[in-house]
């Protein structure tokens, strides 16, 4: 399985200047969240998805699966918004659906449906903006950008390490999982549980050891601070900026009107 940061490294959009991509995606994100307008959310979602699937050449089914990732959180919050609970004697207005017990009633109002729809659109649009950045921009470009934004070195390095090590960890999990499966791990419920336990424990031990080795490697190469020294040889393109400004103007007109 190709991991999401691999897409960033092979994406055809990786040679576009990171500032352009981030300004593009973040301005769309800003409009989506501030206006909570369904049309703006739809436009953002459509633009970002087109960019990811056609521009960055991420297979459609993989992108769909990535979108499903936050759906668990989305679903749980939607349920909380959709259903309201009230005492039986309180007057509920506009209840489209009602379920009553002795002293309580659960109901769905048209207001909460409206709210839920807005949330689904906003979340999907926002997530697509972030995916656009993650799937088209390699880590070192993002770090370059964070440095230009003059964020503290500690913050940048922590972010860089965390992001990088998520994928190192996933790789290790996969390797151990294959080794376990080769020796008949995960065959039935009991073995499954024991195997999973062994995997987690050994992952902990290996992580600590890897960190220690990494620290030694950094120290031996004299890396006291400022580990990331990113050089970027990508030029801004007027054509891209024109596109971004046009996009912002479109969003602005829609949100004003």
């Amino acid at each position, binding site marked *: *399985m*190709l991991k999401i940061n*691999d897409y960033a490294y*092979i994406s055809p959009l990786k040679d576009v200047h990171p500032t352009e991509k981030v300004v593009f995606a973040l301005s769309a994100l800003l409009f989506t969240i501030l206006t909570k307008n369904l049309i703006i959310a739809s436009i953002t979602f459509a633009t970002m998805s087109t960019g990811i699937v056609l521009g960055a050449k991420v*297979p459609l089914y993989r992108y769909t699966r990535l979108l499903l990732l936050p759906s668990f959180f989305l679903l749980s919050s939607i349920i909380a918004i959709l259903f309201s609970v009230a005492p039986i004697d309180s007057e509920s207005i506009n209840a489209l659906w009602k379920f009553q017990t002795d002293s309580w009633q659960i109901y769905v109002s048209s207001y909460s449906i409206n709210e839920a729809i807005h949330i689904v659109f906003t979340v999907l649009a926002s997530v697509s903006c972030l995916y656009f950045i993650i799937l088209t921009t390699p880590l070192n470009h993002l770090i370059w950008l964070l440095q230009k934004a003059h964020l503290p070195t500690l913050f940048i390095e922590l972010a860089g390490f965390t992001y990088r090590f998520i994928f190192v960890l996933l790789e*290790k999990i996969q*390797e*151990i999982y*294959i*080794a*376990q*499966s*080769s*020796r*008949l*791990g995960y*065959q039935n419920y009991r*073995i499954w549980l024991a195997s999973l336990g*062994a*995997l987690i*424990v*050994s992952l902990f*031990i*290996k992580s600590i*050891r890897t960190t220690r080795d990494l620290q030694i490697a950094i120290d031996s190469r004299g890396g006291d601070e400022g580990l990331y020294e990113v050089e970027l040889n990508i030029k801004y393109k007027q054509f891209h900026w024109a596109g971004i400004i046009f996009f912002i103007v479109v969003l602005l007109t829609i949100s004003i009107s």
Partner: protein
Amino acid sequence: MKSPIISFENITYKYEDGTIALKDIILSIEHGKKIALIGNNGAGKSTLFLLLNGILKPTSGHIKYKGKKLSYTRKQIKHLRQQVGIVFQNPDTQLFSSSVYEDIRYGPKNLGLSSEKLKKTVHEAMILTETEYLKDKPPHFLSIGQKKRVTIAGIIAMNPELLVLDEPTAGLDPYYSEKVMLLLDNIHNKNRTVLISTHNVNLAYEWADEVFILDNGKIIEQGSPIEVFNNLEAIKQSHLERPWIMDICQNLNLLEKDYPKSKKELLEMMKLYSIQKDK
């Protein structure tokens, strides 16, 4: 004649990003052989191994296990993984239990052996690999040579018919390399085939009785070591060298009968040759 343990029929494997790892591989692995698979980095060796025990499924073509087509049912996979044991190149990923003993026990325990039989199997595997004195140590305390032997013990304890080792001597000093190779000789018998992957042509030449060269996802040459290493074109194509013993024999015109199989045989041959010359 027994049917081969595993045979590949026109196997192609394509990765998700479109890279073709293996192209139209035809291959059969017979009983009781010592096979060396040679290929440079990225030739597709690891993919081939993971196809052998059913972790990966081929994109096209099919794999036959003892003459029967693999259908990847749970039961069949379980049987296949018991019969095809893989020792991975990096011992660290393979040793995931909290002690050496537990790690060796993992495979046979999953086979559902009785506790008495389990004890015996693990004990035998430890004796064979000389790992008994490490029994209670946690795997991350061991040296690479020790780790390697423990990983081999863990696979032997499952008693597979085909033992696959990915670069068994990688990272080992000459002493431990030789020890591992001797161990492989002990493990090999007329029913059990040992398949190793290696970059070391000299090792392949001396140890194996069958050699495959995998280059860029294709098997470009297979046969006895002498046959394979006489195919200079295939060797050049896959960036390999000829074994030094063959080079020396040819340069000194020592060849009367067959190529010697080891340094010892070569030295004897040279001695004989100089005696004849003196006369």
